[in-house]
């Protein structure tokens, strides 16, 4: 297995799902991630070694996703509260569905976050990027990333969709 295979198999799933979380539409996410991999691979010689490629990959992924989001406002209509509506329709959520329910609530809450807060949250808490890599990805200073993450967590804690989860977490 060569360098390209290794990179693709390690990085693709998380990058793809990151794009899915930002875009909501798997087909669009696939296009965005494909575009990102092609560009990063084409300019791989100009990218600093080590983790630099990951930061650059996410930078291109984020840019590709944002350009799609800004050009296609269907996202807003599509996201909405569909997941929450499904959750409300269920009379008795079971324990094994807890994570799925949390995911649905969090997705709904994320939709209400402004874009400049939503992107760092996804990159930090799903993609697992350190703050300095997020700074590269969103082209802001690390200090800005830190303050945006704090602001996002504060807003999410106040979101009605997550209120029960926060209470439950505190009780535990």
């Amino acid at each position: 297995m060569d360098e390209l295979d290794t990179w693709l198999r390690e990085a693709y799933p998380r990058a793809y799902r990151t794009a899915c979380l930002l875009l909501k539409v798997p087909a669009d996410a696939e296009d965005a991630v494909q575009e990102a991999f092609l560009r990063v691979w084409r300019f791989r010689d100009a990218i600093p070694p080590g983790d630099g490629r990951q930061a650059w990959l996410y930078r291109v992924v984020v840019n590709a996703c944002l350009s799609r989001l800004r050009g296609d406002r269907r996202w807003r209509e599509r996201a909405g509260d569909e997941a929450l509506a499904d959750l409300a329709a269920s009379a008795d959520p079971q324990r094994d569905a807890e994570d799925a329910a949390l995911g649905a609530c969090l997705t709904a809450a994320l939709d209400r976050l402004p874009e400049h807060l939503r992107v760092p949250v996804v990159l930090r808490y799903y993609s697992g990027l350190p703050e300095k890599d997020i700074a590269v990805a969103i082209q802001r200073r690390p200090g800005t990333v830190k303050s945006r993450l704090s602001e996002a967590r504060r807003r999410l804690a106040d979101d009605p969709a997550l209120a029960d989860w926060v209470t439950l977490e505190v009780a535990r």
Partner: protein
Amino acid sequence: MIAEDLLERGLGAAAESYEIPPAAVDDLRDQLAPRRPQARRRLAMSRRAWVLSTAAAAVGVIALAVAVGGGPNGGPDSGSSAGKSAGGTAIGSGTASGVNGVAGVPAPAGAGGSAGAAVTGGVAGHDSATGAAAAVPGPSLQQYGASTTDGQSLAGKPARTPAAPAGAGAKVVKTGELDLQVDKGQVAHTLDQISAIATVASGFVAESHTNEGGDPSGSITLRVPVARFEAAVHDVRQLHAKVLSQQTSGVDVTSSYVDLQARIRALVATRSAFERLLARATTIGDTLAVQSRITDVQTQIEQLQGQLRVLDDQSSYGTLTVTVDQKLTPAPPAHHRSGMSAALHRSVDRFVNGIEAIVGILGPLLLVLLLVALAFVVGRVGYRLLRRQLV
């Protein structure tokens, strides 16, 4: 503030609901760096197909020879009768004869079909179909038609529509380009005539632009029903214009079309299965997972249906692009001057150049004079003031 591990758990769960497309990594890998071994494997398979085809043909020849010649004692007549049947069945008959040089042998399923298709491909666009054309394998399965940069060689011989495969309506995407040269002032008129040809052929003008500058030119793209494509090309050629080049081509997309239809049918069946599963889902997790899969399948169906519509459009209407340029006006011959006349013109030129040089230097000179005068006045005033103070 919300806990970080809650965020990680929730986002992880939300992300897990998105299935990784099964072939995405491999597709991407092929795009980034195409793998050679696959090409070799295809080549190897192709060779195996050829070997099988040849073996099947050989068995057929022997069987035919036995049948015609009455067994191994049939003598030399058996070979010649097989040879005679070659010319009769080589073209478009779906036999392997043109490929293997063995005539009149019904080809086995698969091998014979491909050989037959290759024959069809070789014929299309040429009025004289030969065994050599029929023997071209590979690309001729998909690509056939006339292609030339010399407009005269195809005059009056438009590309023929290839024969449709048995049991399926052929889907052929036809495109063509024509470069015309017209007399001075005739560009706009010719473009109007070409536009009228599209209308007469029940087509339309997809795109048109003209350049009205000193060297007028224009281009026009027609979409014409495939059945009338050759007639439209012929009509354009009949205009009062010189054909500088012509290129037409036809690509058989029947297999792609049929393949798309089959994939759509399969995906619709998959979606129905998921919908039945959704009706039986009892937990939130199951419901979300199945809904996500239905969304994926629906997206794929819509993408394939879009591709199908594009193929439908392209195979219903041929695209003909015609470029019209005006004949170049020959440059006036250089006027030959006599020695005295040339000297006189040189003299006049140099006089004018001298005047230009003098006028050109007047400006800076005037500026220098003004600066000197200003310095003199300032000096004089300063000197007087100083003298008064001293006195």
